[in-house]
């Protein structure tokens, strides 16, 4: 960026030009990012990468039809062409009577802690040190472990301006270590991964990630096949968060308004057991998905999406809110989508260990994706990182097993949420227990 032009200036200039060209509504996001990534392979450092770039994205509306143009770099000619293209596309798009307006300016206090000078000031040697510390720690636990993964640092700044008067600036930092560990013992393989991340270096224990991954790989040695049965399923923090994340993402109002979501007609209805309450909170200090405003400039808020099993709210952007005659919940993305922020489930009364102790026979799923078909809500998922549980004790990892269910059956059979949880910046990940789940095995 030239010294004389801030990103807000650039975005505002594009908005003015778009309006001059005939856009009835327009917003522009302009910004830059800088990243460093150190790649670990075969328990050593494989490569170090660095990148930096600027981008401008223009969204223009004519009679509700949307034209969108994104361009990398900062060449004025490229940016001007992108503005012209966005407006030309908006004029060609089919008018959309459901479009009402882009958000008006909504002053809000900045969320604290989204930028860390320490992270922003780190150089490649600092990132290499974190990677090297992980390699050393992993090898100290198992000298023959194969570690791979990345340590990544990203620094971004940007602005949003709109024809409705929105003028916002923001900046952020993020640092993450993600490590995979593979242990081979004769014909047996133990594999696991772990990660840690945050906006602030002080919120992370980046040096400990490999140790956790190696410990996980050890636990997954000796996998056995199991028979098929209906069993209790205990979802560890990572697996539970995957399920919760997919569920809240399905509360996207556009999918529901369009009639393609399994959550259609469920607002205000009971969709889960009373144990489940989930709050989406984009205002958490230092939260990884926090921000004072969403990608359209709507003020974020704390939103209870599921309250004691009832679908209490949908996630709206300005388009879906206008169509529904309600207010945006602040979940809009600049490209026109809808996205959850930090999810905070209400905790239960028993700790995870006690929840597991009560299981006579079941599966403990430490990690893995349980995704429902977005239309039908059917789930047919692999038990990727699961353990067989007998009389409250973890017995052995399981191999080649699957679960099949309707998302609603799983949610209705949820009978416990733990009182303890894995905590990442902005995210709370408790353990969940679900009874009577169909598990298919090969034994």
């Amino acid at each position, binding site marked *: 960026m030239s010294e004389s032009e801030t990103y807000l200036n650039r975005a505002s200039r594009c908005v003015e030009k778009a309006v001059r060209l005939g856009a009835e509504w327009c917003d522009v996001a302009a910004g830059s990012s800088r990243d460093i990534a150190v790649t670990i*392979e075969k328990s050593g450092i494989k490569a170090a990468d660095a990148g930096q770039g*600027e981008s401008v994205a223009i969204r223009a509306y004519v009679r509700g039809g949307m034209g969108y143009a994104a361009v990398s770099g900062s060449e004025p000619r490229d940016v001007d062409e992108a503005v012209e293209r966005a407006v030309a596309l908006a004029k060609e*798009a089919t008018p959309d009577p459901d479009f009402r307006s882009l958000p008006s300016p909504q002053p809000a206090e900045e969320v604290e802690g989204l930028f860390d000078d320490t992270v922003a000031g780190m150089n490649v040697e600092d990132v*290499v040190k974190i990677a090297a510390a992980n390699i050393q720690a992993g090898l100290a636990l198992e000298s023959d472990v194969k570690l791979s993964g990345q340590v990544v640092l990203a620094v971004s700044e940007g602005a949003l301006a709109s024809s409705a008067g929105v003028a916002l600036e923001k900046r952020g930092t993020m640092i993450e270590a993600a490590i995979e560990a593979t242990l081979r013992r004769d014909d047996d393989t133990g594999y696991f991964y772990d990660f840690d991340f945050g906006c602030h270096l002080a919120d992370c224990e980046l040096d400990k990630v490999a140790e956790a991954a190696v410990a996980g790989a050890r636990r997954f040695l000796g996998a056995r096949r199991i028979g098929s049965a209906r069993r209790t399923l205990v979802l560890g923090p990572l697996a539970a968060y995957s399920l919760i994340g997919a569920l809240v993402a399905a509360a996207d109002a556009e999918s529901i308004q369009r*009639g393609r979501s399994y959550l259609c007609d469920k607002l205000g209805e009971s969709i889960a057991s009373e144990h489940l309450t989930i709050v989406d909170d984009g205002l958490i200090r230092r939260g990884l998905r926090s921000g004072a405003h969403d990608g359209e400039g709507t003020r974020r808020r704390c939103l209870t999406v599921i309250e004691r099993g009832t679908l209490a709210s949908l996630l709206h952007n300005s388009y879906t809110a206008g169509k529904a005659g309600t207010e945006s919940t602040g979940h809009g993305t600049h490209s026109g989508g809808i996205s959850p922020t930090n999810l905070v489930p209400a905790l239960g009364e028993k700790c995870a260990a006690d929840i597991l102790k009560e299981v006579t026979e079941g599966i403990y799923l430490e990690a893995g994706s349980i995704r429902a078909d977005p239309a*039908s809500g059917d789930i047919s998922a692999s038990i990727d990182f699961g353990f067989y549980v007998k009389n409250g004790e973890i017995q052995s990892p399981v191999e080649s097993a699957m679960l*099949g269910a309707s998302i609603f059956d799983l949610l209705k059979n949820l009978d416990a949420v733990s009182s303890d949880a894995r905590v990442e910046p902005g995210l709370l990940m408790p353990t969940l227990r679900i009874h009577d789940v169909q598990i*298919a095995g090969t034994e």
Partner: protein
Amino acid sequence: MEDLARRLCDQATRRGARFADVRILYRTADSILVQDTRADKLATASDRGIGVRVLVGRCWGFASADSLNPRRAEQCLDDALALAKASARFVSDPAMIAEVEPIQAEDRFEPEIPAAAIGLKEKIARLLEYERAGRGAGGSAVVNSIVRYSDGRREELLVNTAGACIRTDTGRAVCTCMIVASDGRILQRGVENRGIVGGAELLERTDPDEFSVRAANKALGLLKAKPAPAGRFTVIFHPSITGLLVHEALGHNAEADAVWASESILEGRLGDELAAPGVSIYDDSTLPGEFGSFAYDSEGTPGRRRPIIENGRLVGFLHSLETAAKFHTDPTGSARAESYDCRPIPRMTNTFMAPGDVPFGQMLRGVERGIYLEDGHWGYVFVQKGQFICHAGRAHMIEKGKIGEPLRDVSIASMTLDTLKNIDAVGADFEMKMPGMCGKDGQSAPTDCGGPHVRVRDVVVGGQAGLLPVGGDAE
């Protein structure tokens, strides 16, 4: 631009790099979203930039910028050299590079119909026609319809210190239709994808009956389908599921960086019989018009047909210049980079199982009770464990050698090596219609996959309906 790239390579050599390459890339894509009878969102995107990769001593450094300004480009070289040096102390597996011919080449793909030759209005009209046909076939059951179309070009210049200078210009077009239908109780969706290396001829070639009408019929069929049973079955894979098997279960394991890193289950197995006799699997980037095809990879190695398994035996991996050097073999033209800001890594292109000689009817007759899996949707693999999952949009029971009642939304999970060994019939037919974007290490690459119908014993199916008694499943 060529002068700039050559100058950077020369500087890299003078400053101690054993190898360097410079990629300058420009790409554009235009897209149209038609939804519920309206062309809702029209979009365009473009990016250009430079990526400089250096091998200094034992380590790689890579830096990129979104500008072709010579000063920024030279800064990239400075950064890449510094990055490599900063990491050198912690390298346990020294980087290597294969010796290659100094290829000078230019490959300009000319689509039958350039994307710009058909105006936006005409493209929108064609997509609305697809949508109308799909909605018409689905009738009042249709609750949502989406047709997406995108076409784009990618121009790339590669120069390296081995003397290569290659210019490529490739176009790709994709079209997707999703029809969601409801019977008042449940929702189901049917999806169809088309993708080619080419341009707007995709619109000329796409017949609504074979595209949006088929998607609508899938959705309607699924409304009548029952939840799949759970348990262990003999399963017949439709070519789309065979494609997922060869891509997810085998192909990712055959990417040589995973093998070298001791993460693949194929490490140390070259030459072993890993699949049933009659099973041959290839990756081939030379197939004209297929979505994963290209002339040269992102390191300048010509594309080729790459045998992975021939008649059951593991015969090769997918190599970059680096992995080829480490395995003392030839590069296979498998190194792909999504954009200028990504390092090239070994990837698949068009991956498929070669047809055998078993007619579908004969394959069916051998199954007393099993499942016919169709409509491959998605899959993933843990190469370290050799465990994969494939998701089918629909399926049918097989009862006494005949196709039975329809089933919905079913996945299978298995171990790669078990599944390859448990193939007991390879069909005489062939289809490769699974264009998509494959993800690895944060990068996307256009790929396709397919094969014939195959029959596999002992596959775990994760359905919702009643469990079969243990061991009481198939045949």
